[in-house]
């Protein structure tokens, strides 16, 4: 007969336990019941702040669809387990449900600690733990201007990011003399503070809040013990966590002096029928406030229920985080508390990098490390630390900057099979290698197979290098040929064209390819030639290479007609220009729509009408918008400081300057920009390939964002820039993208496939690691200097206009193009429409 197993709490650890149990054979022995106090099942609290950057509660969910039903688990959502009767072995919920148990697992988690400051329960004094808390923050941010986080630890910085994402002027108040006092030493704390402040967040350390009361300019005022005051609308407490052990206390289980349900190495409480796991559990006097140790406890209990020997022996507390775009990592004994420990530090004030190594007295073992500003060495250092790998002769080489090609990283081959690659899911190198052997050839396949890299994601670069090394050992070779005509990648072809100064497709094909080419290689080469030499794309030798839209400098629609999009830089347009645009639309009876990129799209133009339409547009002062090209599309902007009450800088002016600078640049795929005049981000710059946001300290540059089918939030690339530096970085960034991306690869995917990712890109563009920046800037300047409006060139050349007719031997239009009217405008007729010809304006 089956026994009943009850799990109290469906947070990250509770759910991880259920998933582990469901996948094990012990599942057959139990009817499983779980109580979840929140209205929704487990979600990812580690990435909670992404809720403010577009993720929904559903995106954050950790529960696969149908999980509970498929595994026969009964879940009581929105019902808190209130009491346990250990005599009768029952659990009773707040709603009055009583369930008998044979085994009980407590995964009640923790609650945010709110210091008992008078006024802590005033309006808009909030905590940061659940999705409901986030919704309360969102509501408070709507009316407020200033937000303050109490607590400068890990969670506090996360919370500060959330406030900043909500558009609030953000402060952090910390009792200790530095930020992240637990993980980071004093010098690291100083660097961290500088970086956080550069992002426009004000940091107050060594501050003891004594009272929260009515504010004069804001909802609240915080009074500090030193007599200073701070006006703030929102107060967000993030001063640590406390284990939720009330239900355990209520039934007489042993708890620690300062809270926490006491457990042994099998995660059993003082009652052998009851386990406790995660942040509610106290092991060896420690509460673990990270998710990985909680998962380790969950695994221990699953193993115990399966009758396997298992033991929780403490957990590594190393962490790597990106806090507001600042990389911070802490490994092992960061504070050098071990007897005889020696310390190496590296500090680079200019690029705001701080690194510290703590090694054993004999300098052979790594005990701990602190990384601020550049955490790229985290994976290697963690492996040294966890696996006791002997350090190189000069351990400082591990934190000193090194030039390209020279690598001091620990290659994946140096790791033992037992080395833990993913600490969230405890996946060893051996398991990863076995999965590669069994046929996983991509990081995504490995993630699906082993779960490695699906927790915090910190191990993905290491996972990738193990994958590549294993694939290489198997003699696996990926075919990266562009197509059957060229045994090269796009990047190879770019280099051939550049180095051998090849100017036509025919020359490239003769030297390096075979056959006639196809619709893959022709446009790719056409694009590279245009990126590099920037000649007129309809030149006879280039014409046959161009993609559908480029050949007629307009966008083909489903019925073979075209749409026309003139450039409206930054979305700024004078009324007389708008009228001129309207007149063209009216004269040629074009369907007219406003685009997402702040311009106007005119649809339904026949190929023979395009030159006349463009003649009128150019006469009115318009130029090509390159909407047809894989090239810069728009630079969207908000109205900025010129008009907006909240504007910090002139976003429209910058947007126009950027659009004029990069217009016409042919690239592997289309490129979109946006510029926002303040952190309210009305231009949605963080969803663009290049996004710029004004702050009090200068321009912040974001790169590789994307909307569309697979949205990607842009990465913060550099902060507090002046205009000249900003433009220099964008020049280099775009040139590097044009040189190295695959065909039709947007910057977002380019970045995600780039070895070393954002850090590598920064090292190339900002630190000039490859020594390429001069060339990249020069190339961009060449393209800018040779810009031409393709439509102007075309209408001035009669020989080019010959192609702009439907028939080479007749002036008749295509009789298959038929429009009907809808909402006062034309649209293509579809089957079932009464096919009624419109009277179309004839053009000479």
């Amino acid at each position, binding site marked *: 007969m089956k026994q009943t197993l009850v799990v109290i709490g469906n947070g990250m650890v509770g759910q991880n336990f259920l998933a582990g149990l469901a996948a094990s054979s012990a599942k057959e022995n139990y009817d499983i019941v779980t109580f979840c106090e929140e209205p929704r099942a487990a979600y990812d609290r580690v990435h909670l702040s992404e809720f403010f950057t577009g993720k929904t509660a559903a995106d954050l969910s950790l529960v696969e669809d149908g999980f509970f039903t498929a595994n026969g688990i009964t879940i009581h959502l929105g019902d808190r387990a209130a009491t346990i009767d250990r005599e009768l072995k029952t659990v009773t919920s707040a709603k009055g449900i009583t369930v008998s148990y044979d085994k009980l697992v407590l995964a009640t988690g923790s609650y945010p600690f709110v210091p008992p400051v008078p006024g802590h329960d005033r309006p808009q004094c909030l905590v940061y733990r659940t999705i409901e808390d986030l919704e309360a923050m969102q509501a408070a941010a709507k009316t407020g201007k200033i937000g303050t986080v109490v607590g400068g630890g890990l969670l506090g910085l996360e919370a500060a990011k959330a406030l900043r994402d909500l558009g609030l002027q953000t402060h952090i108040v910390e009792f200790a003399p530095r930020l992240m006092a637990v993980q980071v030493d004093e010098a690291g704390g100083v660097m961290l503070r500088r970086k956080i402040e550069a992002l426009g967040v004000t940091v107050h350390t060594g501050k003891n809040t004594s009272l929260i009361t009515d504010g004069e300019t804001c909802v609240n005022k915080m009074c500090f013990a030193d007599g200073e005051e701070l006006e703030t609308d929102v107060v967000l407490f993030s001063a640590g966590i406390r284990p939720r052990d009330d239900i355990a206390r209520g039934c007489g289980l042993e708890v620690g002096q300062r809270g926490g349900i006491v457990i042994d190495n099998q995660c059993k409480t003082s009652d052998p029928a009851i386990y406790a796991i995660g942040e509610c559990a106290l092991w060896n006097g420690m509460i673990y406030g990270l998710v990985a140790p909680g998962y380790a406890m969950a695994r221990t209990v699953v193993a115990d229920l399966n009758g396997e020997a298992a033991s929780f022996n403490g957990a590594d507390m190393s962490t790597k985080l990106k806090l507001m775009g600042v990389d911070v990592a802490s490994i092992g004994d960061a504070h050098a508390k071990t007897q005889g420990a020696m310390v190496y530090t590296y500090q680079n004030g200019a690029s705001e990098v701080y690194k510290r190594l703590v090694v054993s007295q004999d300098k052979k073992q790594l005990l701990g490390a602190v990384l601020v500003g550049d955490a790229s060495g985290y994976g290697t250092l963690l492996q040294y630390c966890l696996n006791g790998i002997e350090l190189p002769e000069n351990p400082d080489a591990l934190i000193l900057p090194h030039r390209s090609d020279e690598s001091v990283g620990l290659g994946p081959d140096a790791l033992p099979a037992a080395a833990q690659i993913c600490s969230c899911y405890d996946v060893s190198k051996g398991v990863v290698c076995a999965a590669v052997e069994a046929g996983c050839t991509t990081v995504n396949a490995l993630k699906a197979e082993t779960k490695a890299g699906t927790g915090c994601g910190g191990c993905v670069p290491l996972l990738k290098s193990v994958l590549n090394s294993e694939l290489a050992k198997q003699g696996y070779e990926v075919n990266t040929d562009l197509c059957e005509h060229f045994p090269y990648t796009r990047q190879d072809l770019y280099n051939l064209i550049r180095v051998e100064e090849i100017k036509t497709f025919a020359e490239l094909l003769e030297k390096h390819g075979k*056959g006639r080419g196809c619709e893959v290689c022709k446009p790719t080469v056409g694009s590279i030639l245009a990126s590099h030499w920037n000649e007129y794309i309809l030149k006879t030798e280039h014409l046959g290479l161009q993609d559908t839209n480029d050949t007629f400098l307009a966008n083909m629609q489903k019925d073979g007609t075209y749409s026309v999009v003139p450039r409206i830089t930054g979305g700024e347009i004078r009324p007389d220009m708008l009228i001129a645009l309207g007149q063209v639309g009216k004269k040629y009876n074009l369907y007219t729509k406003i685009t997402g990129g702040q311009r106007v799209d005119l649809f339904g133009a026949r190929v023979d009408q395009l030159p006349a339409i463009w003649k009128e547009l150019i006469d009115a002062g318009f130029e090509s918008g390159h909407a047809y090209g894989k090239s810069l599309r728009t630079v969207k902007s908000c109205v900025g400081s010129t008009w907006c009450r909240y504007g910090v800088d002139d976003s429209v002016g910058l947007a126009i300057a950027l659009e004029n600078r990069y217009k016409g640049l042919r690239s592997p795929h289309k490129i979109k920009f946006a510029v926002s005049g303040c952190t309210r981000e009305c231009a949605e710059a963080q969803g663009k390939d290049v996004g710029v946001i004004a702050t009090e300290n200068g321009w912040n540059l974001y790169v590789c964002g994307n909307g569309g089918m697979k949205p990607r939030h842009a990465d913060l690339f550099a902060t507090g820039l002046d205009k000249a530096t900003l433009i220099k970085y964008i020049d280099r960034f775009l040139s590097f993208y044009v040189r190295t991306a695959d065909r039709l690869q947007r910057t977002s995917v380019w970045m995600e496939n780039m070895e070393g990712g954002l850090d590598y890109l920064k090292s190339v563009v900002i630190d000039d690691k490859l020594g390429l920046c001069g060339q990249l800037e020069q190339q961009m300047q060449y393209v800018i200097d040779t810009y031409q409006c393709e439509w102007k060139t075309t209408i001035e050349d009669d020989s080019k206009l010959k192609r702009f007719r*439907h028939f080479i031997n007749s002036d008749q239009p295509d009789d298959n193009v038929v429009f009907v009217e809808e909402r006062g405008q034309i649209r293509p007729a579809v089957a079932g429409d009464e096919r009624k010809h419109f009277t179309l304006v004839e053009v000479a």
Partner: protein
Amino acid sequence: MAWIDVCGSDDLQPDSGVCALVAGQQVALFYLPEEGTVYAIHNYDPFGNANVLSRGLIGDINGQPVVASPLYKQHFNLETGVCLEDETVQIPVYKVQIDGARVKVNSEASS
């Protein structure tokens, strides 16, 4: 067999296409100057239901000369009119003569 004078050979676009009206039919003409070849197929894309094939990119796939539809990128063999992605679909092809400086197309589809 009716040979119809369509246009001058300098009206053709090297390595690209144009559309001609031939006895009321739309015919796409593709000119490959290196081989001195002109291919003629019907201009109608049966997948996109639009007269656009003359505006497609030409090339070769496994040695067959093809045009890729500018709408949804299906390939059509320029010699037979057969679609490479779906061999049950075939579009008409026409014979072409270059007669001095003139291009002539046979108005009867040859397949």
